[in-house]
């Protein structure tokens, strides 16, 4: 591997990790919001 390939690998890992974490966080937040709304609806039911 050349130096450039190592550099690209390092940047890819950093940017990929941050982007991946942001995407997973977004999905977890959406799922939690849906669950929270569903439970709130259940609580309101007479």
């Amino acid at each position: 591997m050349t130096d450039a390939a190592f550099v690209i690998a390092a940047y890819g890992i950093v940017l990929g990790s941050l982007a991946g974490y942001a995407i997973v966080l977004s999905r977890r937040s959406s799922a939690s919001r849906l669950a929270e709304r569903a439970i709130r609806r259940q609580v309101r039911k007479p």
Partner: protein
Amino acid sequence: MSRIGSPGAVVMTAIVGAIVAVALFVVPADRLQGDAQRIMYVHVPMAWLAYLAFFVTLIGSIGYLIRRDLRFDRLAAASAELGLLFTAVTIVTGAIWGKVTWGIWWDWDPRLTTTAVMLVAYAGYNLLRGSIVERSRRARLAAVLGIVGFANVPIVHFSVLWWRGLHQAPTVVRPGGSSIAPVLGLVLLASVVAFTIAYVWLLRRRMALESIRDATRSHLESVS
């Protein structure tokens, strides 16, 4: 607003993208290490953010034990998860840089070893949080671990000064002044700032997730 594609996400991506472009294509290569030195512009910010994230976890942990306010616990939890990510990325990018400059991926050097210990400690912190259902007990025990775990952070930082190893001593913040070329130092500083903005953005989103979970728990408790 905190979705992917939100204005905050676009701004953060633009800031990080701009500094990455400068680090890869604008700033000159190092005289000795050549292009491999460009790894510094991501490796050092990741290490700095690992320290910062665990310091914020420490503040949140102390705050929770004093005030018993779950907002402090949410801050500690969010920052510890991010700190774990930054530590892992620091180790991986360091291994890549080590392979180019030292010829090896890993060595039981004091800095590398203490960083690995830090990774394990905060993995333990996150596992502990996931293993306790009762909210207040989880917050209390995690706060204790968040305080105890931070003791290793100064050891990681000063390990390069206290013991001999492969890892270089500080070049920016050190006795006698910085030894880094001004242009390289400026780009490194800009990179640290850019990734710190990304950390703050992710931290706020992660805390918001924890708030939603707490609200859900409250609703469930009101039903039962």
